[in-house]
């Protein structure tokens, strides 16, 4: 009988939607029960959100001032301490999950399954390597806890409508003496979240400047889409780094992905190849992006993006 503990990712009192995707991954294990642990300065509202995810059995809410910022060296020992009795400890492949889950694995002296894509059995999983150019099946040793990060793009979010019990736990948590978060500069945007959006419009180097990105924003707003970017566009300073899509940025799976002026390097393709439909608009008919695009249009994006925006 598998028992899965999911470590909740949250920000500004809100649960990250990737947690509901972790629940789906956990439920893919035959007969698994699923608990979520919320560590926060005020865990109650986040725990309530977690409890409403269908399929969750119990939410463990730990409120402590030490969790005002989620420092890996503060979070990991608490989760590792709870792991006894669980067969799996999952976390999302978000920047929080990637930061903290390997610390938990190290404390439990087990290898971590990074970016878990599918569940073949309670100990057998698939994950991507080489920027998604190979998929491997890995087998975790029997009788050891499995620590994994869950690749959000591979899993649909579990539905709402759950009524899990919430258990408030007090833990003696020592605040970090060696790590302090001084500042968080959040990209301010009214647009949908890149990782949760069903539609994404992305721009690349061909946009040429930050100002020119306006044509991408205009199309995105018309579609109610999130905005993404290639590494080239981020490096050139056209958009902030949290919009980067690809191997080292965000890996997304929207229903519709529109790539504008993006050539389609391996590292970018790996971030989008689970998208439902990919549209590529590029001047260069030989751009590799057309190899993965469902619909391709060879054209000048400054001409066709406004045209497309007006046509909607």
């Amino acid at each position, binding site marked *: 009988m598998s028992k899965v503990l999911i470590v909740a990712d949250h920000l500004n009192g809100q649960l990250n939607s990737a947690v509901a995707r972790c629940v789906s991954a956990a439920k893919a294990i035959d007969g698994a029960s699923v608990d979520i642990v919320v560590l926060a300065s005020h865990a109650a509202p986040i725990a309530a959100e977690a409890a409403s995810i269908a399929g969750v059995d119990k939410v463990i809410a730990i409120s402590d001032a030490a969790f005002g910022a989620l420092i890996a060296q503060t979070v990991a020992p608490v989760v590792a301490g709870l792991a006894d009795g669980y067969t799996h400890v999952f976390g999302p492949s978000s920047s929080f999950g990637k930061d903290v889950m390997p610390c938990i694995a190290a404390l439990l002296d087990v290898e971590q399954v990074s970016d878990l894509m599918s569940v073949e059995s309670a100990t057998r999983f698939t994950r991507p390597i080489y920027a998604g150019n190979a998929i491997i099946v890995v*087998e975790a040793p029997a009788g050891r806890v499995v620590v994994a990060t869950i690749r959000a793009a591979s899993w649909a979010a579990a539905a709402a409508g759950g009524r899990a019990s919430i258990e408030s736990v007090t833990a003696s948590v020592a605040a970090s003496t060696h790590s302090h978060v001084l500042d968080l500069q959040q990209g301010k945007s009214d647009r949908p979240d890149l990782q949760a959006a069903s539609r994404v419009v992305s721009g690349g180097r061909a946009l040429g400047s930050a100002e020119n990105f306006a044509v991408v924003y205009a199309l995105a707003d018309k579609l109610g889409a999130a905005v993404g970017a290639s590494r080239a566009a981020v490096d050139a300073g056209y958009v902030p780094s949290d919009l980067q899509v690809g191997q080292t940025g965000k890996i997304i799976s929207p229903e519709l992905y529109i790539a504008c002026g993006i050539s389609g390097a391996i590292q970018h393709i790996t971030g989008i*190849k689970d998208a439902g439909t990919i549209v590529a608009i590029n001047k260069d008919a030989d751009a590799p992006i057309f190899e993965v695009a469902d619909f391709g249009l060879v054209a000048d994006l400054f001409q066709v993006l406004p045209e497309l925006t007006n046509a909607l």
Partner: protein
Amino acid sequence: MKILVGYKRVVDYNVRIQVKPDGTGVVTDGVKLSANPFDEIALEEALRLREKGVATEVVVATLAPADAQAHLRNGLAMGANRAIHVVTDQAISPLTAAKALLKLIEKEQPDLVLLGKQAIDDDANQTAQMLATLWGRPQATFASHVEIADGHATVVREVDAGLETLKVQLPAVISVDLRLNEPRFIKLPDIMKAKSKPMETLPFADLGVSVSAGLQTLSYTPPAKRAKGVMVKDVAELVSALKAKGLL
């Protein structure tokens, strides 16, 4: 201050990887090998800290087969003072790498360990975090800016929400992101100079690290291919195609 830099050798990032037809691995024979791009950025940052007078010594370390000496020479040519080559023919998992690096830390007593945020072959993104945990020291992952002063590192981290500034006490482990810096090119005279720089080789077995009976890789498959798409001639055709699929 001494900085230890992890410097892994991987299949070059431009190579289009092929899965072997029998599913036992990926084709690596005759394929170009290079330094992991993130590790080059880590090394570059260490060298800049030395140039600023913050660090006095930069040591590059790798866990790799015997033929990885040329790889380490590249690190020395870039500017590292010394190299440590832990020789092993086995594939090393992140947990084992972290345990091995901890042994090097015990020996070298660095004030800072700089690692890439992930290796582009296994895409694990684990070693730095595991090392910090086993060492009992703070970590600052996904760094895009690093300042060292008064025994602390102030690190700007690339997180999902934006940029986080984290201050950690040294010694610490920092894993670097792409935008931290632009690594320098190696010049010919530096290659000549690197030949006389010290390189220590030690067999993996001498570290006394137990290789964990960890994850076993059972098979490799190429990713599912997307069905061939169609080219449309103009915006009107694109819009009607997307409408036909129910996407608009």
